[in-house]
C-alpha cells in the first residue's frame, strides 16, 4: 500500500519531503537547545542572592578568587612610576564613612589582636600617627585603579603593612612576629578595616595585606593626606581595586573568616584583586 503510494510521487517530490523532514528535525532540536540555553541563563540570574549577587555567580567569583589568589612567596609587584608622573590632584570618588569630624591632632586608631575568645580589652592597641612615623617610610607611585574603570598614577607614602605587623606582632594565631617566608601557616587568613564611624568597612586576604606595596598611608604627594583622601590615615593596596583602599582607618582586626566588606555586601566580588 505504502509502496504504491510512494510510486505516485515523483523523485523530486520525495526529495523535497526528505528535505522538509530533515529540516524540521534539525530546527526542532535547535529550538529545544535554545530553550535550554535561556532556561540556564535565567536559572543563573534569577537565583536567590547572596549579598546582592545571585548565588551561582557568587560561587564563580569565589572560584575566580581562588584561581588568581596571591601567594606569600615571590609576589608580582605593580608597575611603579617616577614621581613626576603622579597626578597633582588625586581623584576622589567615595565619601562613605568620612562625614564625621575627627580630631586629627589627637588621632589614634585601634588594632585588635587576634584571640580565639571574644577579644579582650587588653587585646586592643591604640596607635598614633607618631608611632607609625617612627617606622620606616615606604613610598609607592603606582597606577591607582577604580572598579569603575578609571585609573590614575598617584604617589602615596606611609608604612608597609607588613613592617607594621612585624613591629606589633600582628596577624598570627599566637601573636608572634608574622613570618611569611618560614611560617606562613601561623598567619591568619583575613584582615578587616573599618572607618571610625563603622559606616565603611573592607575585608582583605592576608597575602594581599602582606604584599610589599601595601601601605598604611599618611602622605599624598609628599604632604599629609588631605581630608577627602582619608586624613589622617588610609589604606593603599595596589593589588586591589580602589574600593578596598579604605579611607580614614578607625579599627584594624584579624580573622580566620572573611570580615564584612561594604561593596561585597552590595553585589561586588569580595576578592576584587588586580
Amino acid at each position, binding site marked *: 500500500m505504502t509502496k504504491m503510494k510512494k510510486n505516485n510521487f515523483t*523523485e*523530486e517530490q520525495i*526529495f523535497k519531503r526528505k*528535505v522538509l523532514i*530533515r*529540516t524540521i528535525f*534539525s*530546527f526542532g532540536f*535547535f529550538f529545544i*537547545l535554545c530553550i535550554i*540555553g535561556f532556561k540556564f*541563563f535565567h536559572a*543563573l*540570574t534569577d537565583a536567590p542572592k547572596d549579598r*546582592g*549577587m*545571585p548565588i551561582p*555567580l*557568587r560561587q*564563580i*567569583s569565589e572560584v*575566580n578568587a581562588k584561581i*588568581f589568589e*596571591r601567594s606569600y612567596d615571590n609576589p*608580582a*609587584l*605593580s*608597575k611603579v612610576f617616577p614621581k613626576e608622573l603622579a597626578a597633582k590632584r588625586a581623584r576622589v570618588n567615595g565619601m562613605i564613612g568620612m562625614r564625621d569630624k575627627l580630631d586629627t591632632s589627637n588621632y589614634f586608631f585601634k588594632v585588635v589582636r587576634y584571640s580565639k575568645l571574644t577579644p579582650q580589652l587588653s587585646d586592643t592597641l591604640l596607635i598614633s600617627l607618631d608611632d607609625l612615623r617612627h617606622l620606616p617610610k615606604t613610598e609607592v607611585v603606582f*597606577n591607582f*585603579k*577604580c*572598579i*569603575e*574603570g*578609571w*585609573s590614575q598614577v598617584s604617589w602615596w607614602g606611609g608604612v608597609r603593612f607588613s613592617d607594621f605587623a612585624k613591629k606589633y606582632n600582628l596577624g598570627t594565631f599566637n601573636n608572634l612576629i608574622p613570618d611569611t617566608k618560614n611560617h606562613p601557616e601561623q598567619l591568619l587568613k583575613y584582615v578587616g578595616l573599618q572607618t571610625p564611624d563603622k559606616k565603611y568597612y573592607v575585608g582583605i586576604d592576608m597575602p594581599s595585606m602582606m604584599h610589599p606595596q601595601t601601605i598604611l598611608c599618611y602622605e599624598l604627594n609628599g604632604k599629609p593626606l588631605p581630608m577627602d583622601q582619608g586624613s589622617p590615615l588610609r589604606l593603599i593596596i*595596589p*593589588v586591589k581595586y580602589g574600593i578596598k583602599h579604605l579611607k580614614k582607618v578607625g579599627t584594624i582586626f584579624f580573622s580566620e573568616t572573611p570580615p564584612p566588606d561594604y*561593596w561585597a555586601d*552590595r*553585589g*561586588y*566580588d569580595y576578592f576584587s*584583586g*588586580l
Partner: protein
Amino acid sequence: MKAFSKKHSLAVRWFHWINFPVLFLMIWSGTLIYWANGEYKLNAGLFEFKFYPDSLYKSLNIPHRLAEGMSLHFLFMWIFLLNGFLYVMFLIFSGQWRLILPNRKSWKEAFLVLMHDLHLRKKAPEFVKYNAAQRVAYTGVVFMGVLSLVTGLIIYKPATFPSLTSFVGGYENARLIHFVLTILFILFFVVHIVQVIIAGWNNFRAIITGWEITEIQTPNREVTPKEENLDQLNTSEKRNITNDEDEKK
C-alpha cells in the same frame, strides 16, 4: 539533480551556536561595565560620537549595573575561552584550518570578493567552502578573540601580570584595545548577518542542519549517508567541480 551535500560538521555547528550567545553576553555584560566609566569618543572635526549616547544606555536599561556586569563577564569569559580553544584545536586536528586560514592568493582575492559583493565586479573568484574574504574574516575574528582574552586578562589582573601589562603599553592601552575589539566584533556581527541574509535560506539552514542542497551532475544517484560522512574537503571540492562544469555549459 538535487542532493544533500555536507557543509558544516556537527562540531563546527556546536562551536558556532555556543559562541554566538556567549559572545553576545560578553558584549552585553562588557557594556554594563563600560558604562561606569564610558570615556571613549570618536572625534572628526565638528562631528563627535560618544560611546555610547545616553539615549542608548537608557533605552537598553544599562546604567547602574556594574556589579551585575562584572559577575556575568567573569563567568562567561571561561566559556568563551574554552569554546574558542576547542574550536581552534578542532580546526588544527581535523585539518579544516586549510579551509579557513588565508593563503597567498587570499589577500588579493578577498579584495575581488569585496568588489563583487559591492556590485563593482561581475565575477567572484572560485573557492572551496569559504571564499577569500570569508577566510580573512573568519581567521581575523579568531585572532580578535585571542586578543580580547589577552587584553581582558590584563584589565582583570594587571598587578598579577605586570610584564604582560607593560607589553601592550599599560593598563589604559589594554582597556582601549579591548574596547576597539568589541566594536569590531559588533561590526563583524552586522556584516555577517547581512551576508547571511543575502546568501539565502539554503546557506543559513546549513549552520543548523549541517547540509546544503546542491545540484549534482550524475542522474539517478542520491548521496548515501555513507558518502555524506566523507571528508568535508572532498565533498566541498566535489561540489565545486560540479559548479565549474555548470559554468562551462
